[in-house]
């Protein structure tokens, strides 16, 4: 009986010892890795991280409050047809430039003149009328393309060459 008890005790001691050694190992590893990463003491690092998180949160709060107070978010003009855009809205927001440049190459080089993804279709459908019921050009900040591009501070060069308003002289004359 006593022999059995002593054996149990020894086994218990062994397991405790092993676990302590393991714990020490991991602690050493973690401190080593931390000190490998930075030579500064751990506490200072932690303080810095916490401070930056708090400052970030404060800045975010500040911006959200000012946004509520009236930063001009884009007021996107509705399509005159009042229908769904040529593609899904989220897709258009992310990919309209890709569609436009693809269409551009197809039209210039191959003479493919489908309207669906054309620049002309954008400002024809989302036309904004100003004074005298005339469509506004890209010089007007209310222009469809400018609403978002001004907000995102992304310059558009399209209208250095292209017209920004729908219309144009319609000529006749069929090929004989």
């Amino acid at each position: 009986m006593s022999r059995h008890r002593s054996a149990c005790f020894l086994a218990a001691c062994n397991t405790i010892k092993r676990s302590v050694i393991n714990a020490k190992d991991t602690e050493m590893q973690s401190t080593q890795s931390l000190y490998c990463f930075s030579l500064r003491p751990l506490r200072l690092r932690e303080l810095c991280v916490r401070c930056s998180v708090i400052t970030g949160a404060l800045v975010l709060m500040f911006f959200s409050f000012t946004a509520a107070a009236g930063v001009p978010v884009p007021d996107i003009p509705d399509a005159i047809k009042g229908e769904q855009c040529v593609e899904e809205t989220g897709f258009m927001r992310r990919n309209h430039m890709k569609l436009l440049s693809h269409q551009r190459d197809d039209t210039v080089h191959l003479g493919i003149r489908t309207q669906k993804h054309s620049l002309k279709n954008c400002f024809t459908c989302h036309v904004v009328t100003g004074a005298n019921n005339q469509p506004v050009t890209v010089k007007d900040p209310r222009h469809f393309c400018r609403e978002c591009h001004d907000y995102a501070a992304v310059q558009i060069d399209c209208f250095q060459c292209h017209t920004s308003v729908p219309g144009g002289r319609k000529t006749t004359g069929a090929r004989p």
Partner: protein
Amino acid sequence: MSNEQDNTQNKQRIDRYRRKLLGGSAALAGAAALGSGVFFTSIARAKPDAEPASSEVRWGFLIDTNKCADNCDKCVTACNDEFNLTGFGRPETDAQWIRTVTLRDKKTGHTTRLPLMCQHCAYPPCVDVCPTGASFKRPDGIVLVDKHICIGCRYCMMACPYKARSFVHETIENQKEYGPRGKGTVESCTLCAHRVDKDRIPACAEACPEKAILFGNMNDAGSEIAQRMASEASTEIRGDLRLNLGVRYQGI
């Protein structure tokens, strides 16, 4: 054993026969489909919007200078109107896609007037020299500038034997929606590609009161332009350069 072999051989033979039959009928169906397609394209002349320009087509002009009246510049005005080519009072640099040229024979004093525009060469020197690939030839023979790529170096203007190209020196406004133009790029006659793609004739040909400018597909033997080119004499300007022009003249 031999029975089994016979059976498998028979089966294979039948399979081969079936395959042949299927293949033949598929080919027949394909031919029928193709035939109907050809039939439809020959009737419907208009190019669908989604279809790219075909290399089987070669658009061109046949210009009869005998019909060109003195002091008539209706083709030039029509072109300027079509693309809103407004001048800035500087003839040396104002855009000019088509102009009238008067030739005078020094011996006889005989003068000839003719409209001169981009000759839409089959081997265009402007395309050869363009460092960016902006100057290009469409499959249907129309020579264009891709202004998205053009850097405005003007090599093409120097290379062109016909002085057909212009450089835009000024900020442009009120462009037509089918004719984008912008400062810092080279431009020239587009053979009214936007009209041609919509099955219409170029503005100058439409405006000519004497019908001196004939537009058509030079590759189509049935077209008026090809038939007249075959039956009447016509020449290229600077034919010695062997550029195979898309614009041919009569009476010079």
